[in-house]
């Protein structure tokens, strides 16, 4: 099962009621899989006329209390940003998968990590946040999908799973099983028909003086809770490291090989791998920067997450960037060479 199919099945196991999507490479296996599997489960699959329509179909389904998702790739995700902003404003849960490709513009269909800014900075207009996962294996992609639906419902906001062309196409053995989910609040806000109750209204327009400011502050408090409670990251041999490589997603898989090679050569290297990109593991990176060491950030872009690393390091240690944009994929040896150049090289015994 390739990553795209695995994440689709994970969504079904997680209780996704409806999938809406529009074709775009490199994520077409998701809609093909959903077109077959969702009707088998008695759930909704619909190919929309555009990404704009897809995200708005998600908006409608979600407003009625259903678990809804869509998936796309970079140019399509740009079109969905209108809906992302409205989901955030209307406090509606949704899961959106971005299997990133090269950009800007039509770019290419090669794997990329060029949408980090768009994903973690909101992407659409207004003062809001989106929870963003950056999984680096097919199993983690599956696990993130399950968690994404729960977090979306818990915090009533859109959650994005940020994959890339390699992860979507890669095949790995996986286990998909329904784990006990979170204790989620009842969706008393859902539009189900005002039968023996007062009307429910789902909206994002607040014209009264100070009303929108109050909503923004309510969202801010919620985002602070998320920053406190939902950070996920993996650390490897950071305490003794003279160089810490920071990478996420498929770039982190390559970094993993490079760090192991460096350690075999006697270089004290470790890694920090953010799994949630927002909330970013700021504390973990900051703590690692307390002991002076070199931070190397590796991305398949010309440097986006590196800004979050610099903010976390806050001048306490040097932060070096190495990137391959536009569909370029670094090799293990390429990153190993950078690690070697940035350190004193293998320790020689006298």
């Amino acid at each position: 099962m390739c990553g795209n199919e695995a994440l689709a099945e994970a969504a079904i196991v997680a209780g996704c009621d409806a999938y809406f999507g529009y074709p775009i490479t490199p994520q077409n296996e998701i809609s093909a899989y959903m077109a077959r599997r969702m009707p088998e489960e008695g759930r909704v699959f619909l190919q929309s006329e555009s990404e704009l329509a897809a995200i708005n179909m998600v908006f409608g389904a979600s407003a009625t209390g259903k678990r809804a998702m869509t998936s796309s790739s970079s140019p399509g995700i740009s079109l969905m940003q209108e809906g992302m902003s409205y989901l955030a404003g209307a406090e509606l849960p949704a899961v959106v998968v971005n299997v990133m490709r090269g950009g800007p513009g039509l770019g290419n269909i090669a794997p990329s990590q060029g949408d980090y800014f768009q994903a973690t900075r909101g992407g659409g207009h207004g003062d809001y946040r989106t929870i963003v996962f950056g999984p680096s294996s097919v199993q983690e992609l599956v696990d993130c999908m399950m968690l994404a639906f729960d977090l979306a419902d818990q915090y009533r906001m859109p959650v994005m799973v940020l994959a890339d062309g390699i992860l979507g196409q890669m095949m790995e053995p996986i286990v998909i099983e329904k784990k006990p989910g979170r204790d989620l609040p009842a969706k008393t806000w859902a539009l189900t028909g005002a039968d023996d109750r007062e009307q429910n209204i789902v909206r994002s327009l607040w014209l009264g003086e100070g009303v929108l400011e109050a909503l923004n502050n309510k969202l801010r408090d919620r985002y602070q809770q998320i920053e406190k409670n939902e950070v996920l990251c993996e650390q490897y041999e950071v305490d003794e490291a003279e160089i810490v490589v920071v990478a996420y997603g498929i770039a982190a898989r390559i970094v993993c090989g490079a760090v192991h090679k460096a350690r075999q050569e006697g270089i004290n290297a470790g890694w920090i791998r953010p799994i949630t990109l927002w909330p970013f593991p700021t504390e973990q990176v900051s703590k690692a920067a307390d002991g002076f060491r070199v931070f190397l950030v590796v991305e398949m872009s010309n440097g986006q997450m590196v800004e979050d690393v610099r903010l976390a390091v806050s001048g306490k240690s040097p932060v070096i960037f190495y990137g391959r944009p536009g569909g370029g994929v670094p090799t293990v040896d390429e990153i190993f060479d950078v690690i070697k150049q940035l350190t004193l090289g293998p320790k020689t015994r006298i």
Partner: protein
Amino acid sequence: MKTVFARTPTLKDCPTHYCPGCGHGIAHRLIAETIDELNIRGRTIGIAPVGCAVLAYDYLDVDMIEVAHGRAPAVATGMKRCNPDKIIFSYQGDGDLASIGAGEILHAGHRGEQITVIFINNAVFGMTGGQMAPTTMLEQVTATTPKGRAAAREGYPLQVSELLATLPGTIYIERCALSGVAAVRNTKKAIKHAFELQISGAQGLSLVEVLSPCPTYWRMSPAEAMEWIDTHMTKVFPLGRLRG
């Protein structure tokens, strides 16, 4: 004393923000009456557009959502596909439906979504200050056609209902008006029929276009605006059943 005319329960007991002589208030009432007569308040979900009617949920006492400009048919699609037992209607103006949302209404009709659309055509963008809409009449002066709409420059008024009536996915399309008592009664009949079709489970989209006065941006008195619908608008937007 005998009460011969009263507020219908689904219409909230409050003044609206609409301008004097605006048609939205009448259209709201017709929808509220329909919902009450068909006894579907408990399973109806309404969709408010971007435009003058964005606050429709302040006046219609049913579950409602406010959506991005023009996207109501897509939102309605998501709702209805997940909740076939609910009655889903969108309430959209001509800027919303015929301009920015032309793609969404076309494809909802094309797919035959089982939803009801109330399309208020007042030939102008109201909320933003009276700019030209696709439905603006030739020679009509608006904020963005100060010398009047010219076909060579801005194209002809867009007849969306005629366009939609060509689609097999639509089951009922009728154009009505709010220009007098008889016209209002016809509009009520059409709205009720559109809802009844959805309740019956008929396979397809039903749409009622309502020619509605906007005295403010037509720069007329309310009475003149009513007359202008009959003397001018119906020439380009003829009343009657276009499909079903």
